């Protein structure tokens, strides 16, 4: 026989419900703690780096060239070298990547060739950077006879960043609602007109963000540039904005960090840390500008 529940006891917590609610509270705190734990390493790295690098930090460190066998002075030659490598590699990979992605996303029809291209893009993105380095060495330095040069290193970095740019651009393009494309097709717009008038204006923020995020990758990789065009030391003059030519070898921040940390004895302790701060700082700055750009561009589009 079922006993009748008095109205005052209806909808109150039973033991089982209370237990489930406790479990849910615990889960919330544990998961929250994990996501907080993710922030800690970043903060720790930045604080530790800044603390160690403090004695060397300053404009002087950025603008001066390495002196006394890299035991003193600054990092100008490496900083400019990295600017060259990143700038040139993205100047190569961004147009190719964006145009390829537009083709794949807007024009290409479902076929075995396309599936093959897609698979190539995905797998190319997964190739370790040291393998890219070796490929660059074989293909550009020796194969194409570009020698150890900024050109070879940039091409290697370009190949490395290309698949990711293709993937992020495609993602940005497919985020544009299909309804816009239908609307265009139904007034007789060609695909190219649709792309120019509607698809690109509405995906440009995503495309640019994807490209900018590759800056940090290109700037940070050591192996590809070490194999193909970066050197331990190159004499340039202090503050010179154009010290290298395409066929020259250059210094690079990532490589320089490796050099002063492991290859040169008796380096002032703060120098490798300060180099790391510059590398990390420039990358964070670029990423931050990507975020600002995205917010600005997104503010202008609404649907």
């Amino acid at each position, binding site marked *: 026989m079922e006993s009748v529940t008095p109205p005052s006891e209806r909808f109150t917590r039973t033991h089982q419900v209370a237990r489930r609610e406790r479990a849910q509270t615990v889960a919330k705190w544990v998961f929250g703690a994990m996501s907080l734990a993710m922030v800690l390493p970043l903060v720790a790295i930045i604080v530790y780096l800044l603390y160690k690098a403090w004695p060397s930090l300053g404009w002087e460190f950025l603008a001066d060239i390495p002196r006394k066998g890299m035991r003193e002075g600054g990092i100008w030659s490496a900083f400019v070298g990295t600017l060259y490598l990143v700038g040139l590699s993205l100047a190569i990979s961004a147009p190719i990547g964006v145009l390829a992605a537009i083709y794949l996303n807007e024009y290409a029809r479902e076929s075995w060739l396309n599936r093959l291209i897609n698979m190539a893009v995905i797998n190319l993105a997964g190739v370790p950077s040291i393998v890219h380095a070796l490929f660059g060495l074989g293909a550009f330095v020796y194969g194409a006879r570009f020698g150890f040069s900024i050109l070879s290193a940039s091409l290697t970095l370009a190949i490395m960043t290309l698949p990711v740019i293709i993937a992020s651009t495609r993602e940005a393009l497919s985020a544009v609602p299909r309804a816009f494309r*239908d*609307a265009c097709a139904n*007034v*007789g*717009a060609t695909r190219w007109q649709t792309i120019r*008038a509607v698809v690109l204006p509405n995906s440009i923020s995503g495309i640019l963000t994807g490209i900018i995020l590759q800056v940090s990758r290109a700037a940070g990789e050591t192996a590809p540039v070490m194999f193909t065009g970066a050197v331990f030391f190159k004499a340039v003059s202090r503050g010179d904005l154009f010290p290298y030519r395409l066929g020259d070898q250059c210094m690079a921040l990532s490589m320089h960090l490796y050099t002063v940390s492991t290859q040169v004895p008796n380096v002032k302790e703060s120098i490798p840390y300060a180099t790391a701060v510059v590398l990390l700082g420039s990358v964070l700055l670029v990423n931050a500008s990507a975020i600002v750009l995205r917010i600005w561009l997104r503010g202008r589009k*609404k649907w």
Partner: protein
Amino acid sequence: MRENGRNAIVTRGLSLWYGSFQALIDVSIEVKEGQITSLIGPSGCGKTTLLRCFNRVNERYDYVRTSGGIEILGKNIYDSDVSLVELRKAVGMVFQRPNPLPVSVYENVVFGLRIHSKRRELKRSELDTAVEKALTEVGLWKDLKDRLDARATSLQLEQQQKLCIARLLPLKPEVILMDEPCSALDVEGTRAIEEQMFELKGRYTIVIVTHNMSQARRASDESIFMLMGRVVEHAKTEDLFLNPRNPKTLEYIEGRYG
């Protein structure tokens, strides 16, 4: 008025497959010029598919195959000299969900003109005239004449849908296809769009797909009832609803299935 008994759209033995699924089976219909013809039938009966054949927009998907013929205003649209751009200019479509482009009201209306003319040939004054004419024709001019720079996507749904109709007009279409144009709208919006259709009737041939049988009854001259990819019955709307010849039609309009 174009109600001269001529046919705007004629299909002959039209079949269509999505991959291996046959969505249209031997469809042969004649749609009269200047009239409103509604396509009705339960979900999946092929009415939207048929509508999308008329400006060949189905072909944007790779897995679609068709056979048979479609003549629009006497021309077989599968002829090799038919340009999809010209076809779609003449046969415009209005969608279920209003799909204004994310630009201003003004730019939405002149979008078609812009993509079909060289930049130098377009004078600002001509564009202005075209916008006023198109928006007047759909009854939006009074409400929007001071807000032409507003984003089209910020308008009310009903206004957006009217704008989508207005967007077709500067291209002087001959046929306007409507795919459940009122299903996202409330009663007022639906009435407004239906009134719109009556306004446009005669100058344009209108084919409307609708789920709403009372809408087909109110708004169309002729109705075509479809089931499982076939045309079951095609008659004057009042005949189809009052004296359906096919028992399937009767059962559907009585609401026994669908």
